[in-house]
């Protein structure tokens, strides 16, 4: 299949989905499932009303603090876990614990610990993305071709330099993948957490859920989806900009 074939099929899929939704929406009625023809207008209205974007930007800002922390700590830690057995043995159990624990289950404890403000959201986002970022880096580090490490050793490269000049760049594709996974989970967790405490974008969604029409609710979800997909693509783009060899490496395995 060529690129244009794939694009054609993609578009066909979306059109079919929208048609089904439209039919379903007409049958179910607006207070169960608003049809796309209604949502479009509602969406434009919300866009100009300002609430949606203001809450979204506010929430995303706090989310990026938590996510940034998860990357800043998780990436180097995953890399060290993958290369040094002692570090792995020491921290692997609790990293695994963080991954399997659902953020929803932690939310009540975090509310007690941090209240419902900035720290709470940062903490939730951190725990929900940290594990993915760390473990992806960890698996990348374990899988580094030992031959490439031998090259470094052959030139008498010291351990710090090897870490900086060989291990980190070799890990780069994994770091980007981990960040993409982490970001998806961070976004979900943030919205979920906000629904608990009725603040920010999640709060907005929760409150709109009580409305008679589902059109605004669906609009908020669509925006959230755009943000997730956009951020994910953005990270992929950054990966390619920073590392022109990134694509070749990923397709080569």
């Amino acid at each position, binding site marked *: 299949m060529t690129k244009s074939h794939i694009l054609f099929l993609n578009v066909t899929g979306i059109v079919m989905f929208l048609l089904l939704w439209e039919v379903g929406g007409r049958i179910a009625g607006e207070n169960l499932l608003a049809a796309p023809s209604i949502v479009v207008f509602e969406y434009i209205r919300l866009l100009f009303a300002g609430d949606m974007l203001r809450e979204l930007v506010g929430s995303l800002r706090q989310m990026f603090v938590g996510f940034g922390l998860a990357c800043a700590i998780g990436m180097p830690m995953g890399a060290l876990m993958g290369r040094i057995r002692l570090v792995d043995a020491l921290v692997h159990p609790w990293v695994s614990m963080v991954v399997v624990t659902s953020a929803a289950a932690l939310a009540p404890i975090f509310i007690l610990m941090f209240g419902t403000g900035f720290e709470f959201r940062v903490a939730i986002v951190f725990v929900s993305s940290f594990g993915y970022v760390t473990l992806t880096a960890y698996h990348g580090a374990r899988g580094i071709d030992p*031959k490439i490490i*031998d090259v*470094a*050793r*052959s*030139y*008498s490269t010291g351990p710090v330099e090897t870490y900086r*000049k060989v291990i980190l760049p070799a890990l*780069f594709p994994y770091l980007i993948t981990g960040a993409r996974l982490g970001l998806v989970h961070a976004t979900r967790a943030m919205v979920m957490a906000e629904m608990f405490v009725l603040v920010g974008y999640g709060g907005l969604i929760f409150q709109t859920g009580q409305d008679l029409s589902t059109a605004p609710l669906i609009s908020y979800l669509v925006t959230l989806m755009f943000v997730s997909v956009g951020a994910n693509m953005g990270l992929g783009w950054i990966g390619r900009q920073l590392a022109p060899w990134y694509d*070749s490496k990923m397709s080569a395995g």
Partner: protein
Amino acid sequence: MATKLSLNNLHKSFGRGKANPIEVVQDFSLDIRDLEFLAVIGPSGCGKSTLLRLIDGLIPADSGSILMDGRDISNKVGGEGRGMVFQSFDLFPWRTTQANVEFGLETNGVPKSERTGIAKHYIDLVGLTGFEHSYPHELSGGMQQRAGFARALAIKPEILLMDEPFGALDVQTRDILQNELLDIWQKEKKTVLFVTHSIEEAIYLADRIAVITPRPARVDRIIDVPFERPRTEDIKSRPEFLEMRQEIWSILKEGIKV
């Protein structure tokens, strides 16, 4: 002629869990003369790469010693006048040709201003002019090995350790690179330890050939190659060449039977 590198009674075995350890290199002794081109030939899996890794210090020997110009370098990892060209090129995919060639210079603390010029010199020498800013995935196999060669040359090693550098290349590219290697060797004046499993390659390139036994690797015989230099392709069809090929072939075959 003076001895450049002397390998004395090297032993190496690898543990295999509960099974008996596997003896890969056993009582291996060999003197490599200053500025000679020595080929080491042996069947696949006989321990040639292991031998080079021992010499480069990438793995420690169980016993035995390695002397470079008489000084003991047995426990030194990399460096010490050794430059390795790897079997599967093993360039850093995130570095351009230029940056790959500069790698060893960086590690040795050569300042940026000097690195650029040195790397450029060796990139030109191996015929990669114009590909300084290409990444390895943009280069053919032959070009990648040229880059690997330039990377090893850039640190000005006294002895080049080459592990079947052309093994992964097609025949034509291999022939071209063999001739270029000889050219560069004459220009740069280096000792070369060249591992191969191709008999023709060994005869065409080397001053002496050490034929080694299948695992565990030991020197079976050392053969002097009488052909004059510079070598040209036509020696490959001379009767003496064919005779020598036959001789080495029968030594290798004998080793395999035992």
